[in-house]
């Protein structure tokens, strides 16, 4: 990352931190929806543990976002008292769980990006961001390893598991492009040496996912068309609002309830 240390606009930094925290929050919540429903006990535990890691990372990101914003909001406030249009997560992570294959494919497509993003953020000019990235990257390394093994196992598995994994890939691939498109917030982060240019992560991502798809006997869709609007908050899919009604109901029904 560049060594330039232009102080970023506080608003841009807040946006960036919300993007990191909202990705882990929304995916963490989605994955936790499997708790008690996974096909086998070991997978149930694995998904719950993955969700737990992601929610833990969310607390770190959103607490820091709240400090940067300096308006009295902590991670809980940001998680439970914002509405759909204030969320900054990628469209990919808000997509419904679907079947187990769809959940695992979504996890793999996200983990592959997440790990390279965190690895780059470990060199951030912002020491707190670098520390969160260092902590998270250990957990995400493990997530990616498991998602990779499971995508290969199911893709190159039975006729049915292969079909479901290919369907999942075809369904989710149009949400991959958004991870690599830079906007003004990203440009401000790059200028301040805080975060990498999203586009710079694409070649390594392509190499990794292509190798895994080959091993999994899956066919990468021909078009790289990508839906946008999640990380900017401008056009979330209809699924996020439904998810928030579940995730936020307690704080909405009983504001500021604690236990």
């Amino acid at each position, binding site marked *: 990352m560049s060594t330039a240390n232009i102080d970023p606009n506080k608003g841009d930094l807040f946006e960036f931190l919300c993007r990191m925290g909202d990705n882990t929050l929304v995916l963490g919540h989605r994955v936790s929806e499997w708790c008690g429903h996974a096909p086998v006990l*070991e*997978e149930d*535990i*694995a998904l*719950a*543990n*993955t969700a*737990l*890691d*992601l*929610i*833990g*990372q969310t*607390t*770190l990101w959103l607490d820091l976002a709240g400090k940067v914003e300096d308006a009295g909001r902590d991670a809980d406030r940001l998680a439970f008292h914002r509405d759909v249009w204030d969320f900054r997560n990628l469209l990919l992570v808000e997509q419904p769980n679907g079947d187990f294959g769809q959940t695992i494919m979504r996890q793999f497509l996200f983990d592959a990006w997440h790990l390279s993003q965190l690895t780059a953020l470990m060199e951030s000019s912002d*020491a707190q961001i*670098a*520390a*969160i990235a*260092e*902590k*998270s990257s*250990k*957990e995400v390394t*493990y997530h990616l*390893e*498991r998602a990779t093994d499971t995508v290969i196992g199911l893709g190159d598995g039975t006729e049915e598991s292969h079909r479901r994994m290919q369907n999942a890939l075809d369904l989710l691939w149009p949400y991959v492009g958004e991870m690599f498109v830079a906007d003004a917030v990203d440009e401000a982060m790059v200028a301040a040496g805080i975060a990498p240019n999203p586009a710079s992560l694409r070649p390594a991502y392509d190499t990794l996912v292509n190798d895994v798809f080959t091993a999994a006997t899956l066919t990468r869709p021909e078009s790289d068309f990508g839906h946008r609007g999640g990380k900017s908050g401008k056009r979330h899919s209809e699924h996020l609002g439904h998810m928030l009604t579940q995730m936020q109901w307690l704080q909405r029904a009983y504001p500021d309830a604690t236990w």
Partner: protein
Amino acid sequence: MVVEKPSLETVWGWLHAVPDPEIPVISLTDLGIIRDVQWQDDTLEVTVTPTYSGCPATTIINLDIETALRGHGIEKLALKRQLSPAWTSDWMTDAGRAKLESYGIAPPQPAGGPERCPRCQSTHLEKISQFGSTPCKAQWRCTDCLEPFDYFKCI
């Protein structure tokens, strides 16, 4: 009321007696998560690093540290969270590793899997799941005695 500040060595001794809430056979110092103990004027500052960012035991650990130190008469106490350098299972003490194994949990190995079955010492093992009962563990099984066991993940 503490008239004299206890030495740092004494404080480390107290912390050594605080068990991990989820694996009570090892202490917090065995686990390697207490990174520093310092006096800042008359305030005792204890620096703790989490094992996993979402580990629910983290808040209990802080509570246990506070309870133990208050029990020894420490009145001014500050707990600091340190994320970097990130906790690694390499920081677990040899004594901690031995206690884990005799408790039935295989200690972490750089190779990424348990060295032997903690019950019958067989090296014929298979992985059941990459995750276990807590974020820090995975599930393995011995193919000789057929017992499943927890393996403390190496990170």
